[in-house]
């Protein structure tokens, strides 16, 4: 343990002991020795890094101590019980030293909470988010700006339901930072990329352009027993312009689907007026495994020769089959 951290702890020893005693009153399982390891392994390196980047030792120690204690109490940080992504985040936050020094508790808590959400969302990519956030520090060392970039990054890393908010955030960020989030080499291309992504959820500006063709852009859902969503093969429909899925098992419930080029998420929903949607009113058609879309030609999908339900938005066709727990998404990817 460095002298900086040790001195900061000693300077407010009574306060830290009182906070721990109070926490242990409501969580008797808290172990002083184990929390001591958390302080040595996770907190001390961050205090040193943040102080090295100009942070105040007392304020940084105070913010990180309280945050670490909360996380330890929730079993998310610690030698015995922990969330691997949160633990990884506390190691990686040394790379966020400057913003961490300015707002230690805000950054530590926000990063921990975000990693927990990303880690618990099937298909999301917490490591990519963490790497992306560290890379963004080069362009944004103010805590608020960095956290804004982190929100947009979370969308890029699989939290598809944040798409509208993320696009708005990206439009407001400085172009070099937005370009970093979108992995574009040229900040001048940000505006055009945002325009295209706003109308086409399957557009990924980081991928090379090609002529539009119908492809299976995603296969989502899966059997709950294997970490998926559904207990029994689902059906799909369109409600208020959004794709929804209903578990074939009544116990499984209904879900709202958010999907785009960067990921897909399912959100429990309550639907009173469930009706078959089909492809009416959309540019798609599906006949015996052949999907066609106005302006994008047609393509064969043998897996969709027999379907139990179909629904389509202007950009995406969703189909389920009687024998699979997955939902197929077809779009004209560019």
């Amino acid at each position, binding site marked *: 343990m460095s002298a900086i951290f040790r001195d900061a702890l000693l300077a407010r020893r009574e*306060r830290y002991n*009182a*906070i721990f*005693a*109070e*926490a*242990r*009153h*409501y*969580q*008797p399982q808290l172990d002083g020795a184990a929390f001591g390891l958390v302080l040595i392994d996770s907190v001390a390196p961050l205090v040193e890094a943040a102080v090295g980047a100009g942070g105040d030792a007392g304020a940084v120690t*105070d*913010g990180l101590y*309280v*945050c670490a*204690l*909360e*996380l330890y*109490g*929730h079993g*998310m940080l610690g030698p015995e019980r922990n969330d691997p992504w949160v633990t990884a985040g506390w190691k990686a936050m040394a790379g966020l030293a400057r913003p961490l020094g300015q707002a230690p*508790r*805000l950054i*530590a*808590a*926000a990063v*921990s*909470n*975000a990693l*927990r*959400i990303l880690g618990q969302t099937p298909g999301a990519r917490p490591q990519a988010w963490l790497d992306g956030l560290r890379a963004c520090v080069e362009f944004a060392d103010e805590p608020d700006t960095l*956290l804004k970039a*982190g*929100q947009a990054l*979370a*969308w890029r890393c699989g*939290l598809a*339901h*944040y798409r*509208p*908010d*993320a696009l708005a*955030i990206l439009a407001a960020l400085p172009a070099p930072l937005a370009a970093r989030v979108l992995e574009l080499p040229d900040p001048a291309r940000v505006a055009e990329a945002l325009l295209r992504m706003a109308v086409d959820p399957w557009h990924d500006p980081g991928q090379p352009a090609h002529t539009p063709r119908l492809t299976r852009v995603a296969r989502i859902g899966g059997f709950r027993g294997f970490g998926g969503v559904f207990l029994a093969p689902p059906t799909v429909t369109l409600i*208020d312009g959004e794709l929804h899925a209903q578990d074939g098992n009544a116990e499984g419930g209904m879900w*709202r689907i*958010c999907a785009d080029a960067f990921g897909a998420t399912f*959100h429990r*929903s*309550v639907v009173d007026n469930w009706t078959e949607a089909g492809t009416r009113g959309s540019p798609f058609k599906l006949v015996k495994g052949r999907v066609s879309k106005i302006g994008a030609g047609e393509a064969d999908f043998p897996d969709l020769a027999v379907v139990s339900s179909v629904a389509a938005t202007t950009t995406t066709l969703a189909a389920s089959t009687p024998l699979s727990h997955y939902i197929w998404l077809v779009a004209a990817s560019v």
Partner: protein
Amino acid sequence: MPIDSTPIAKVSEAPTNPGAAPRQKRFDVADLYRGPASTGEAVAGPSAIPLDEKLRQAYFWIVNHAIISPHYDLEYNTDKPPQVFTFGDAKAKLSLPSGQSYSSFVLVPLLNFAARRRCLLVGGPGRGKTASATLMGILAGYSVREVRRGMQHGQPQMTISDLIGNPLPADLIAAQKMDDIRIAWRKWLSMRVKIIDEYNRIPTRTQSALLTVMGDNYAEILDQIYECPESAWFLTANDDAGGGTYQVIEALRDRIDVVVHTLHFNNRFVDELLTRIEENLKPEEVMPPAIIFSEAEIDRMGDAIREVEFPTALRRRLEFFASQFEFFEPAAEQLEYKTKDTAKLSGIDFRALTALDTGKDKVKDIGAATKNGFSVRALMTTLIFAKALAFFRGYKAVTLDDLRNIVPFVLHDKLVPDTEAPFFDAAGNQVYRVDRVGWIRRLFDLSCAEFDRLSLDKDDPVTALEAEFDGGLQGVSEAEARARLVKIERLLAEWGKGRKLYGPMFDDILKLKYLHQRHTNYLAWLLIR
């Protein structure tokens, strides 16, 4: 130490009652950074969350950190039925509710705080009555010191001056007229949470002064008036059944809206007590700012509670339940006076009169199990507390479960059981002589079962006639008015063929008489116009 940085100051994360959440949630990217770790900024905007959510957070903070009440006696179930287990020879039942359930000892005072009514906390010494009331004061934004100083402790020598205030001695000598006498009013009169500890130890004369403050919201000394703000009242009593130093005057008891019993201390939680002693923890001193209500918030909460819908179908069930109790056939000759109130005013022994009420099944007639009926105040209190409970749970309309759960606490001291009635001798009912909450809940269940048996939800002729009348009489033709009169008369004639008269029919008959009179008068006016 700034309390908002400590774990004890953390309030439960919204939504605290997920069942009440909106069906289609709007996604907010700000949620990315919300979670178990507090950023330290959450308490900055306490009023940003809906008031019902804040009230639930207050409830959960109290049960998790302040009052050790690991009870869930206000049970709610989802569409899944509860799991029920039985124990012992007497088959004591335990149900595991499938929905979010609550502790009455914490929730009912909290609803009283939100609805600004009058709550009596009853129970043995050292059970947390005063602590619970103190927390309500702190919730209203007062410091622990202010709450303690504002608390009135009942004692046998308590005078009106002790309670309300006293005239300034200099003015008493110098004043030429009464208006010149200034009064030093006690500070507690201006508080929005008023606590009277051990109210049954207050002398009778001082109780009368308290009654004026509680009932009419003003205090009076030497013709000087002090208007009190609208406030929530909390009274405590060690033994409400006459164990206080003084008998509580009936009018004062009648002003109390809800009664809540302290539940026993579960001895598996002694370790909590030990830690509090060892670490000198005083939860009331570290209440998180995020759950403290401003005066404006309490006002808005009152408005929001009143706006909660009380569905017509549920109102009918409450009417049906309430109508069971007042009717008392031997009390008078004229139908309107056949009430328990008439019997009570006569001063004749109630037992002697009930002996005259023959020919009915007195076990099935739940009205025969009480010595009185519902007062208007009891009905109004039931309505407001049912709304408050629905509001607390995040619902826009009162549900049957809300009504069923709150009725025993409102009627606890208002519905007087006739413990010698045959109802209490029936198998399984003996326990209700002691268990007032269980008894009232049982009466409500029996009333609902009878309501269902009679299919009154679907077929209620009086409701149909009421609906016609509610459309207004203006423009109703002579022929239509006569037709309605005939309908009423036919219905009465049909009911007259039955042999037994029970409470609900008594109210229905009088309602029909009312409708008949209104139409008769209208017809007379129409003909001479």
